[in-house]
């Protein structure tokens, strides 16, 4: 659905409220500025820098988990950090999404053999989008957000369908 096509003179759009909310949500994904390791340089700093300019997609960083919608887990999560990551996730308001950015957050990456390292952040949180690479390029975090937007917009339709079926 493209709302911008309907904006003309005296135009009128009929839209389900849930669809509207999810449409708005998908266009203002604020992420938590929590860079743990190397991937943060590429995924958070360079991606929000002048060339890869995140902000034009409505993606902007928030320093507090209370104001964030998306958590980008960029880096290795070890047993000591796992507690912090989970606490931050719990502090974020619903609805919330998680992007596992880089090999370490997906599976443990080059440090998977070390007993202190968690084998992927999906052991402790639900992950929506996995981005491979060590580190992934900043373009891939754009791709991750496009995928996340698709997922969020699809979610509304799925829910509406489920409601229709139950009626």
């Amino acid at each position, binding site marked *: 659905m493209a709302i911008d096509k309907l904006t003309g003179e005296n135009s009128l759009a009929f839209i389900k409220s849930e669809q509207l909310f999810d449409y708005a949500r998908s266009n203002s994904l604020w992420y938590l500025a929590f860079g743990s390791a190397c991937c943060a340089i590429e995924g958070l700093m360079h991606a929000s820098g002048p060339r890869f300019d995140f902000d034009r997609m409505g993606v902007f960083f928030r320093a507090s988990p209370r104001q964030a919608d998306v958590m980008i887990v960029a880096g290795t999560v070890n*047993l*000591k950090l796992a507690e912090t990551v989970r606490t931050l996730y719990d502090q974020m308001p619903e609805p919330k999404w998680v992007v596992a950015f880089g090999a370490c957050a997906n*599976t*443990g990456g080059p440090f*998977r*053999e*070390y*007993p*202190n390292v968690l*084998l992927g952040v999906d052991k402790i949180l639900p992950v929506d989008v996995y981005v491979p690479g060590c580190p992934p390029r900043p373009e891939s975090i754009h791709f991750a957000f496009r995928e996340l937007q698709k997922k969020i917009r699809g979610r509304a339709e799925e829910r509406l369908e489920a409601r229709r079926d139950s009626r």
Partner: protein
Amino acid sequence: MRPDVTAVDRALTSFGSKYSVCDAQVGIIVACDQSDALPILQALRDSELDFAMLLDLFGRDVDGKIEITYHLRSYSRDQELYVRCHLDHDGDLHSVWTVYPSALMPERETAELYGLTLSDHPNPKRLLTTDGVPPLLRKSVPIRTVEEVRSR
């Protein structure tokens, strides 16, 4: 780069036979007991050799012992020296932070990762890992195998 062995001997005359000096591949190494490390380091720092900085401190698990190495550097004479001592597994690491405050964190790290106890230290807590993690740098603690990683 390498200090004179006689100069090191001169600085440590008061210690008699508690130490030995050898000229190794990596540099001049002073070997001693860990309990004597603090006075020996103090003597080396305050001597004419002027080892003002503890550049590094690390351990190694070798031949059933934990080997502790202190890497000293003198900027005024541009020389480097190693002080080395051996400890038993679960031995007691005496802190040298009163002489070199730069040993504070490396000592905690070494004690934790080799399973040593730390004495005379102002904050002898774990530094890098949480409770229950084994002393990871010991040779007896294995890393994960390929099967363990694959079946994650």
